[in-house]
């Protein structure tokens, strides 16, 4: 097992390394540069001489591989550099943005899990019933609604008409108020993703309900509710978890949009802002962090699956032996 984990970690490090190099090179290919970003909509006032001068000050005129080497050695010393646009320490900026995004991910996935587990199981267990069809329609509806639209509608409803929730921002550090602020953005992320989870659970439960082992259990006279609780649900848990691993990456990406609409000061908005202002050190740090996060979550999911399902565990152990 430990050998397996070690192998996965080494693989992850290689992915991170290659990813960082590609990102470093690709973000330089975007049209524009930090000097241009500094001028903003006054860009027409920037002379070529200014561009060269400012990029020189920022150390961007060196050959790109030298810059990458410097950056990499910095990173190995735990130093992520300075933001090109504000001069602040990158670590500080990123750490500051981390907590809001973490909270948003946590709360939206809590909503997703609760909704998906309840409705996915109902829908799968009573397949082709009226309730299944209703759940299916609703989940397809939410899958196809663009999240930015849903966000505006929720704001209109809860903030403008009902006046019960604040439209955007993160509030003060007070917990109660924070919850009021986090409800809408988490709902938007949750609703636009929950459909996939419900479909997944539904299909899994519905198919395994027809499979041989359920008939066998029925034949042994085990009550239906126990079959569901002890066999069908645990059985569906593995694909559900694996899907979560993949889906977290997607929801991280969609948080860019949601965080922008709700003025949520998280990683998504930081990514967008640093991409727009060509703030390379910040953008790289954010990308590396997201990569690290996605890889870690997937690793964790694999481990949890192995822990739950002995078959997968055996596979791991065999792989480890090889």
């Amino acid at each position, binding site marked *: 097992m430990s050998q397996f984990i070690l192998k996965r970690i080494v693989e992850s490090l290689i992915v991170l390394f290659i990813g960082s190099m590609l990102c470093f090179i690709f973000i330089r290919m975007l049209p524009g540069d930090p000097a241009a970003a500094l001028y903003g909509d*006054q860009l027409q006032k920037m002379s070529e001489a200014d561009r060269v001068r400012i990029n020189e000050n920022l150390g961007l005129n060196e050959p790109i591989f030298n810059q990458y080497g410097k950056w990499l050695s910095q990173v190995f010393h735990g130093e992520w550099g300075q933001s090109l646009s504000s*001069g602040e320490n990158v670590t500080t900026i990123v750490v*500051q943005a981390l907590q809001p995004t973490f909270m948003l991910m946590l709360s939206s996935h*809590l909503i997703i899990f609760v909704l998906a587990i309840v409705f996915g199981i109902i829908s799968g267990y009573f397949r082709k019933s009226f309730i299944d069809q209703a759940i299916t329609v609703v989940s397809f509806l939410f899958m196809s609604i663009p999240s930015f639209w849903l966000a505006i509608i929720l704001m209109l409803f809860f903030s403008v008409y009902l006046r019960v929730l604040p439209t955007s921002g993160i509030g003060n550090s007070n917990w109660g108020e924070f*919850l009021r602020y986090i409800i809408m953005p988490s709902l938007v992320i949750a609703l636009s993703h929950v459909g996939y989870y419900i479909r997944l659970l539904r299909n899994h439960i519905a198919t395994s309900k027809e499979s041989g082992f359920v008939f066998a259990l029925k034949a042994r006279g085990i009550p239906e509710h126990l079959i569901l609780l002890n066999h069908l649900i645990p059985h569906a848990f593995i694909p559900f978890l694996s899907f979560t691993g993949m889906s977290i990456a997607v929801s991280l990406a969609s948080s860019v949009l949601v965080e922008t*609409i709700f003025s949520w000061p998280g990683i998504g908005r930081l990514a967008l802002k640093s991409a727009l202002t060509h703030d390379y050190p910040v953008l790289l740090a954010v990308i590396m962090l997201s990569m690290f996060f996605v890889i870690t979550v997937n690793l964790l999911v694999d481990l949890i699956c192995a*822990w739950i399902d002995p078959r997968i565990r055996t596979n791991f152990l065999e792989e480890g032996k090889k």
Partner: protein
Amino acid sequence: MYKNIKFIFVAIAFFSVFVLAGCLGDNKEQVDTAEKKQLIYAVESEIKKVNPILDESQEIDTLLFRGLTKPDENNNPQPDLAESWNISEDNLTYTFQLRKDAVWQDGQPVTAKDVAFTFNKIIDPSTNTPISGEFNQLKSIEATEDYEIVITLHHPYPPLLDKLKVGIVPEHILRNENINETDFNQNPIGNGPFKLKEWKSDDTIILERNSSYYGPAPKLEEVIFKVVPDANTRVLQLKTGEIDLALLEPNQLASIHEDDPFTVHEISTADYRAVMYNLRLPLFQDKRVRQAMNLAVKREELVTGVLAGKGEPAYGPLQKSWAGIPQKEWYTYDPEKAQQLLIEAGWVKGADGILTKDGERFEFELVSPIQDKVRVALANVVSEQLKPLGIIAVPKPIDQHAVDYDGEDALIIGWGSEFDPDDHTYRLFHSNEIGDGKYNFGAYQNQTVDELLIKARTATNTEDRKNYYRKFQEELAIDPAYNFLVYLDALYGVNKNVSGISNRTLGHHGFGILWNIEEWDKE
């Protein structure tokens, strides 16, 4: 069985987190402490640093840092930190007397040393600032006494007094700092009517009244800058009263109702849009061709169609200035005259309806930066309006970073200074201003214009200057460098409880709304 226990364990783990979150929800809401007179301003982009010498147009800077001069309601420079000034006969030496009661928030006096430091930093090549170009006429700046500063110029530069509104920064704090990266940029020590109270982690910035400010005490107790990147969210927040002030877009006006707690202030700006011709191309050499295109554009249509009526037709660069003259009569829509001029210039319509001359078609690319929706729309409509004449202007929206200002056939340009008329005329239309870092992108050359602009910038008498600018505008209409299209209005959504907003003509993108913040009040 083992399997079930594990499953239940995982399920319990999930549920306990959820229940925990539910408990937190029961916490009582904290009520805002005592009602304060605070103005909440929603801005589109995050404020990353507050330092007037590192930014061109950032509203917050003017609340914390004051400069030598400030504009008045008519955009004339008035004394601020400078009490008075003398200008030498040759217009090259400016001597300023500073007021002696101005102090930094930390109690240190604001002296001539700070002023000299500020401008030397702005022109220092190692400072990453977009405003160094505004001060390239500065030859030297010297603190001759504690409260006296002498500025000498390379050439006469009438807009200098307007430009000197840039905030002064404290030398005693920044002397040994790297200005691009210093902590000061997030912990500013200013001399203005407000000072930093708190810079929150979500980039909301709370300013409070600065009791040591030398000027009249602001009526507002706090000004809060809140980042709201999404334009629709800003409107919704105005509706709920969460914010008091935000810049709006014309297409949002339809969603605003009378019973909303805010009104829309339409403020005129000097910010215009025009088609700039690259006169390096033979196509545009003949001024009759440019005159014809000027006559073929329906400017009212552009205002109603593209700007939702929030703007006005543009006929020249100084329309909003004291030096402006009405120029409408030259360029009201007149397709027959336009046709006539083109025929005189030797262009005839071919079988396909497109103008040709010596086997060449009248065709050029009209570039606009894709990030600016208004400019893209203007390019499209202008292109349509030129079609009936047989002129093919191919709209070409490209990434703003890829625009080659000196090299495109024609492009939708935006300029306009609300201050001295010299600022955005000499630098745009004088033939000395062609080349890298200079703003005569279209290589416009006209000897009469050159002479008039020189005379206008060196004349000391306002009447004389006005006279020269009148002649300049007449000449520019005869030999157009641009096809002026529209002036934009700035639209601000303002809470009905807020008062004190002035209607001073604003600059680029409605920048400068907070210029008289001391007079703002909230019920």
